[in-house]
């Protein structure tokens, strides 16, 4: 057991839309230790990004953190104001986004993005910041002569490298990577994954790696958190998760993946519709699609229980 760095307790994040309340994250508990990588997987719309953004308190309106605690290094982030959050963002928890094409300021040189970020958080001269920026670019595999280039002169993969450099610029404790490879083509995806795996060790950062692609997550994660309809339904170390997953949803998911290494089409063939978070099903949210559903599943929401050490599951089949 390492040192705990992040603990999310009873987190609820709702979007108050005109059509009603979207319970995008509904009573989520999870924790992570320093330097470990948690793969957060789930279908599209299951609330992965919302959970990721809420850790930085960057939920776009009409979203709100309704309840719960986000304890980071002993501080409850939900209690902090904007100014205090700014000191966390980028410096202690940073983020890599899905679409590298739109995540950089088109009017700003690549190098200046890094320099600006470093100088925002640390009292350094411009020269020192530039030197560090160059070192970061080198670490992500970008030649120093591209320091003065603009984003439009870079390919998607190169831009994602820049985003990674930006996320690592201040040696944060946690990087939240929200589908960092989904917008890239396959070969580039592998390169970026390799790079992230290498840098994660080099910089010794913890990571929350969000993906709808369980095979991508399998490679890089120490732990897997499986999300379904705004809730974490199973949470375990990666090896036990793949070998003896407990939740019916996990079972169905992994069945639809004949070989983790080879697959790239996964979560598609589970019968039934993904739930509508405006009107989530009663009881266990997975019950309408669950082959093992019993009457209790319709009536009561199962708790997330630790079945084996460090292996949590939210299902009435396990007590």
């Amino acid at each position, binding site marked *: 057991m390492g040192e705990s760095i992040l603990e999310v307790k009873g987190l609820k994040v709702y979007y108050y839309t005109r059509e009603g309340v979207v319970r995008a994250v509904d009573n989520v508990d999870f924790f992570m230790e320093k330097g470990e990588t948690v793969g957060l997987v789930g279908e599209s719309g299951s609330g992965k990004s919302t959970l990721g953004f809420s850790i930085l308190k960057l939920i776009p309106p009409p979203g709100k953190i309704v309840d719960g605690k986000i304890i980071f290094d002993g501080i409850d982030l939900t209690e902090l104001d904007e100014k205090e959050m700014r000191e*966390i963002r*980028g410096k202690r928890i940073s983020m890599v*986004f899905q*679409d590298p094409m739109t995540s*950089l*300021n088109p*009017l*700003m040189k690549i190098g200046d993005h890094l320099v600006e970020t470093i100088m925002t*958080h640390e009292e350094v001269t411009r020269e020192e910041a530039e030197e560090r920026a160059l070192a970061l670019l080198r670490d992500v595999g970008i030649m120093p002569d591209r320091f003065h280039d603009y984003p439009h002169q870079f390919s998607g993969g190169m831009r994602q490298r820049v985003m990674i450099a930006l996320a690592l610029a201040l040696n944060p404790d946690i990087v939240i990577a929200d589908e960092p490879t989904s917008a890239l083509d396959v070969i580039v995806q592998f390169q970026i994954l390799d790079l992230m795996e290498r840098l994660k060790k080099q910089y010794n950062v913890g990571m929350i790696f969000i993906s709808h692609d369980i095979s991508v997550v399998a490679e890089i994660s120490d732990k897997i958190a499986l999300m379904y309809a705004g809730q974490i339904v199973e949470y375990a170390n990666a090896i036990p998760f793949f070998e003896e997953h407990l939740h019916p949803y996990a079972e169905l998911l992994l069945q639809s993946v004949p070989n983790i290494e080879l697959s790239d089409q996964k979560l598609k063939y589970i019968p039934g519709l993904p739930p509508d978070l405006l009107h989530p099903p009663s009881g266990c949210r997975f019950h309408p699609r669950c082959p093992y559903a019993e009457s209790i599943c319709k009536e009561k929401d199962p708790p997330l229980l630790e079945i084996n050490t460090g292996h949590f599951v939210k299902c009435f089949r396990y007590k």
Partner: protein
Amino acid sequence: MTSLRIYVVRRILLAIPTILILLTIVFVVMRVAGDPVSAILGGHAPAEQIERIKEQLGLNKPLYVQYLEYLWQLFHGDLGRSMIWGRRPVLVEILEHFPATLELSISAFIVSIFIGIITGVHSARNYNKPTDHMLRLYGIVTYALFIPWIGLILQLIFGVYLGWLPTSGRIDTLMEPKHITGLYVLDSILTLNIPSLISAIRHLILPSITLGIYLSGIYTRLTRSNMLEILRKDFITAAKARGLPEDTIIYKHALKNAFIPILTMMGLQFALLLAGAVLTETTFSWPGMGTFLAERIFYRDYTTVQGTIVFFALLVVSVSLIIDILYAYIDPRIRY
């Protein structure tokens, strides 16, 4: 920077055909749409006098010769001579009045951009709050206002009622600074003439605010809508996720990106700025091109009117050229 230089040269070369087309339009409109001789002399002048005027204006020559002569003269910076009062060169007269208009336009332009951007940014920042609703109303109302009406209200309040500011002219009598550029504020500063500077600024305030308010509404609306659009972009969220201060995000990241369409609008608005300056000048007895043009139209000073229109047209083309170059300077994507 070399790519920028290539762009600038190419853009300047492209302006040449535009200028030729514009000059041709002015020529055609002036020759075809009206009969300058009867405009000058009235309906029933003796044939002999008509002939004399025609010769004086070169109107007895074939049209293509007239056209080429017109271009040839313009090419040498010759706009012809006035038809009244000592037949002074038109260019000289224009250049006498232009600094007054330029001074008014520049300061009104600054006022409008300043008001427009501040209100627009403020509006976007307070999206859907009362401040936003009020500023949106401002953005619509100012556009519908009539310049002489804004001018009159300001004259009444600050000139007549409070007595703080002069309501007509460019400067108090005998206070003119030594002529260097013809812009009184600038000349006063260059000659360190403080009393002139104060007088010039005091005269400039009401007309600039009048024209500035009139032109600001469109910038308020444009800044607001562009800021709202940019603030929704991923790179803004990414900047927030890096912990950058809000003002840096608003002004350095968002406003600079929102500025490109605003810059385009500045170019498009330039013609309106000149037209507005003409109306403002007459409201405030400002001795610039507007007052001058109105007076010469009244006297049917054909050559001067034509020359002034050519001058305005060239001005609009040059400004759009400058705007395009600024554009490329701000946005690196345009250069390639």
